């Protein structure tokens, strides 16, 4: 029986699942506060620009974006299969490419900040 290469895609999924479990709710809470018109101080342009301008913050943001998108993509792949979409290779290619594309875009924008 051929051993699977799933660990390549599962490793970042598990890491991302853990990271998003700890972090995503509070981050959504921050933008929800902004959506309700009570934007936290950090979301003021000058503060956020200075904060994200630091190389360490950029690294962290890029890591969070990648792991969040990757774990979401992997789950979406499984969900498609669960719901009867049998073209797993095509689905996998699309969702993982989407996650990498989103991360690439984030890297480009971070480089300009």
């Amino acid at each position: 029986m051929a051993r699977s290469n799933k660990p390549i895609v599962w490793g970042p999924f598990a890491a991302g699942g853990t990271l998003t479990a700890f972090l995503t709710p509070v981050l959504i809470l921050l933008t929800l506060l902004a959506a309700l018109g009570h934007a936290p101080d950090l979301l003021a342009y000058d503060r956020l620009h200075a904060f994200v301008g630091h190389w360490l913050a950029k690294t962290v943001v890029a890591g969070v974006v990648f792991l969040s998108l990757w774990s979401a993509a992997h789950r979406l792949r499984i969900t498609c299969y669960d719901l009867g979409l049998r073209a797993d290779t095509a689905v996998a290619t699309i969702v993982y490419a989407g996650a990498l594309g989103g991360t690439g875009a984030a890297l480009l924008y971070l480089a300009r900040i």
Partner: protein
Amino acid sequence: MSRKPYVREMTWRWIFRHPRYVRYMAREFSCLFIGGWTLLMVWGLKQLADGPAAWGAFLEVLRSPASIVFHVLALAFAAYHSITWFNLTPKALPVQLGEEFVPEGVISGAHFALWAGLTIAVLYLAGAF
């Protein structure tokens, strides 16, 4: 005696066969909200890079009714993801101290405590209160 086994086909409707499958699908659908919100933040990074006016426009979009509805849903699904994830963590990462295994509730409890601490710390550092 002839054999003629009957195979029952499985359609997508299995997700409604039992409440546990509905809960499972809700957990899995959290990916749409976590992924969607993250993509929204990638766009936010672009607006931040484009300057104060673009960032202001981004905050304006956040304040739209559709965005508020999305945020409320996203927060609920993200929290559901966290709860299910931490509840299942002790299964994947059991801890044996001496002879006995640490009770599952202690391991997930530690994760919930850390989650609460992190949430408060981030809110504080972001100046939410």
